[in-house]
């Protein structure tokens, strides 16, 4: 083991230089190591600037969203029900009912069972549906969406939602966001450094389904509220918040269920000052070619009638159509503040979510708390390092000093490895580092105690060192493996911050194998071997 001295010195030097380069890269190398990431320029000098900080340290918001994919299936079944009714009626088959039942099922009730076989032939044209039961005498058929079709639709909905949310976040302007699918129907969104988490949540979670529907002017609001309204109409509300009293008013409208046009056909959306009410803002929209044509037709056919602009099921406004509008331009008004208007523009540009999303988990930390956490965490690390340093020095004297240097090297390698792998340092991760300080010296304690023991059996300095390192080594490996096992399980289980704890613990423990065994041994070899005969060992 005393051979290869120069090689071993070289390895240690490379490790130290490499670590320092990763922690404090010189300007030219920084881009090479970390890419042209603007987020790296961070203030707060306590930690190396290349360390990737978790949301709990730098502030930010962590969201897990659940995509309600069943809503997509429901609307698909509803659309299919309308299609099936249309196809049957085209063949002259009377339909008493064609409606969704539950999420994936549909009941088709024929007016009579006379044209039963023809009806079945028509239904065969809808291969996405399975016939679950058919009662000829009652003229009643139960259809169910095929599981494979449903799975495809669910998957598509989640992926579309992911894409839409990514677009919104991009337009909102967040440095280094994380947006990824988690499990089957969950989406993880992490936005570091967000100042206003409430606004970000509203922006991400809004379905933003813009719809244009005609008002049902033949049914009075009173009748509709009493439940007397045709099957093709429904009551929707306009929400208005009084600026002074903050009281919300809900104004009912009777709206035809049929959607004429949606926000999917939009080309542009922009914030404008509202010319009719100073201090308020409005959103100007422009349709694409298809939307422009449809919008032209709608306005042409409905001159003098009221057109409802509906956002996420709420009536935004219901202006009267004065004339045909050929250019595909419209304005959405509604007492918007400039921020409201801007956010609406973002969601309209990024498109609607295919299905509503629900927040399943949220963890957001304000920037001031993050700074406090860093300060306290660093204080704990420095304090425990100091105490352990002094303890080792007092107890093992010069050998303790070597162990202390090894411990310092351990911390440097630990942080550099985290920076190099772009691992995230979290608040529990800082706890992991503090714990590592206590546990990393264990290896040196094991070895030193062993050397002392060997001494007592009458060995020479050199013999005791050799035997001490050799005998302790197996135990050291064993103890490392068990901690790594728990860290690996912790990593697999944990969510963000806890994962950080596992990462720093595991790297710290692995690094201690290098520093407490390899490095300490080298120093011992350098000091206590060679031509001079050493009689005493300071341990």
């Amino acid at each position, binding site marked *: 083991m005393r051979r290869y001295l120069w090689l071993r010195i070289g390895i240690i030097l490379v490790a130290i230089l490499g670590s320092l380069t990763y922690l404090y890269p010189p300007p030219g190398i920084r881009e090479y190591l970390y890419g042209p990431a603007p987020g790296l320029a961070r203030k707060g000098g306590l930690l190396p600037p290349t360390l990737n900080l978790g949301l709990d340290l730098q502030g930010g918001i962590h969201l897990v969203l659940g995509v309600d994919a069943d809503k997509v299936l429901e609307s698909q079944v509803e659309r299919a029900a309308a299609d099936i009714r249309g196809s049957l009626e085209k063949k002259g088959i009377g339909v008493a009912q064609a409606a969704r039942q539950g999420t994936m099922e549909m009941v088709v009730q024929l007016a009579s069972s006379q044209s039963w076989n023809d009806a079945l032939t028509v239904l065969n044209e809808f291969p996405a549906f399975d016939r679950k039961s058919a009662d000829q005498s009652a003229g009643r058929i139960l259809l169910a969406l095929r599981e494979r079709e449903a799975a495809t639709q669910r998957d598509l909905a989640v992926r579309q939602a992911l894409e839409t949310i990514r677009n919104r976040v991009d337009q909102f302007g967040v440095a280094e966001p994380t947006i990824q699918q988690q499990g089957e129907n969950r989406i993880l969104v992490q936005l570091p450094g967000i100042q206003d988490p409430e606004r970000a949540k509203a922006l991400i*979670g809004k379905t933003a389904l813009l719809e244009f529907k005609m008002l049902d002017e033949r049914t009075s609001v009173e009748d509709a509220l009493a439940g007397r309204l045709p099957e093709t109409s429904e009551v929707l509300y306009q929400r208005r918040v009084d600026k002074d009293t903050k009281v919300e008013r809900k104004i009912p409208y009777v709206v035809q269920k049929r959607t004429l046009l949606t926000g999917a056909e939009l080309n542009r959306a922009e914030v404008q000052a509202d010319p009719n009410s100073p201090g308020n803002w409005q959103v100007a929209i422009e349709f694409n070619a298809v939307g422009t044509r449809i919008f032209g037709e709608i306005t042409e056919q409905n001159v003098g009638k009221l057109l409802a602009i509906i956002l996420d099921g709420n009536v935004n406004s219901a202006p009267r159509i004065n004339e045909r509008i050929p250019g595909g331009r419209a304005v959405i008004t509604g007492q918007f503040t400039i921020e409201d208007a801007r956010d609406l523009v973002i969601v309209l540009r990024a498109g609607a979510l295919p299905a509503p999303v629900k927040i399943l988990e949220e963890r957001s930390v*304000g920037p001031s708390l993050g700074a406090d*956490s860093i300060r306290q965490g660093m204080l704990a690390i420095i304090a425990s390092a100091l105490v352990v340093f002094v303890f080792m020095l*007092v107890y093992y004297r010069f050998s303790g000093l070597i162990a202390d240097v090894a411990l310092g090297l351990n911390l440097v390698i630990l942080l550099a490895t985290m920076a190099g792998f772009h691992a995230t340092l979290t608040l529990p991760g800082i706890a992991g580092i503090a714990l590592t300080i206590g546990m990393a010296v*264990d290896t040196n304690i*094991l070895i030193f105690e062993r050397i*002392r023991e060997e001494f007592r059996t009458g060995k020479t300095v050199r013999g005791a060192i050799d035997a001490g390192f050799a005998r302790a080594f197996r*135990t050291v490996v064993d103890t490392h493996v068990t901690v790594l096992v728990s860290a690996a399980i912790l990593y697999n289980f944990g969510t963000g911050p806890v994962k950080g704890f596992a990462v720093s613990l595991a790297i710290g423990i692995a690094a201690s194998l290098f520093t407490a065994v390899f490095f300490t041994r080298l120093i011992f070899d350098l000091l206590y071997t060679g031509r001079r005969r050493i009689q005493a060992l300071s341990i």
Partner: protein
Amino acid sequence: MLQLFKEPHFDFIGKRRWAYLLSLAFIAVGLVSIAFAGGLRYGIDFSGGTLLQVRFDQTVAVDRIRAALDQIKLGESVIQEFGDPREFIFRLPLAEVPAEEVTRRVQEALAKDPAFGKVEIRRVEFVGPQVGRDLQVQALYAVLASMVGILIYVAVRFDLKGGVASIAAIVHDVLVCLGALSLTGREMSLPVLAALLTIIGYSVNDTIVAYDRVRENRGKGVKKGLSFAEQINIAINQTLSRTVLTALTTFMATTILFVFGGKVLEDLAFVLTVGVVTGTYSTIYIAGALIVDWTIWAEARARRAKKAVAKAGSA
């Protein structure tokens, strides 16, 4: 040379019955405390709910906050001072309203009372019912998985007896930690679970060092007439300095973390500190002592079986 123990010869194993009693007493106190509290208190990570960390720019009475929160009717909320008389934590149970509404309503309620001054919401944690349930199941798996992993490792490296005794020591440590958690009114949260898993790794660590020594001594040849109990006792004594020193440095690190690490890390550091102490103790008195009793029992049974065979032969 500074030395904790000079060639110690403590009779640890001989006093193991007392240690069993002590352990049982500790665990019993802990379990009674848990039972009286109606089970472990789960934090929102596992039970679901909303946690808000709020800072006011002046000192505020808890009653005043409670009055404000009662108005928004989000269910029974827990209000706790958090390290500073201006800083509080609110825990709200799961409600029908969506997550984004909860924070907004609390903000509005606090804004209504001018006595609060400027209010800063520093941390929001919301865990929905599904996520809470998922985390509960995963937590259970994680604890079981790490125990199985360690059982296998120790059984392969040493023997099955050692593996089972290590697991017994781990169960002992986890129970003591949970008891301490309940006695101090702390909650079971994700960081606490992380601490428990770490303690599992730490506790078995010590045990392995002692077992390693037993085997090494055996490899050198056991002195005649040395019983298994004595062999274990010698190994424990030989590794005692290291066990205590490591426990000491780790204990210092976790205690400092507990004192200086800030409120958020307090529970994690608390469990680590308790765990280091019980983990060290359980190496000697659970993992070491149990394997002795098991061996004595197995040997006695083997002798009885031999006698029975001999008797049957002579009859």
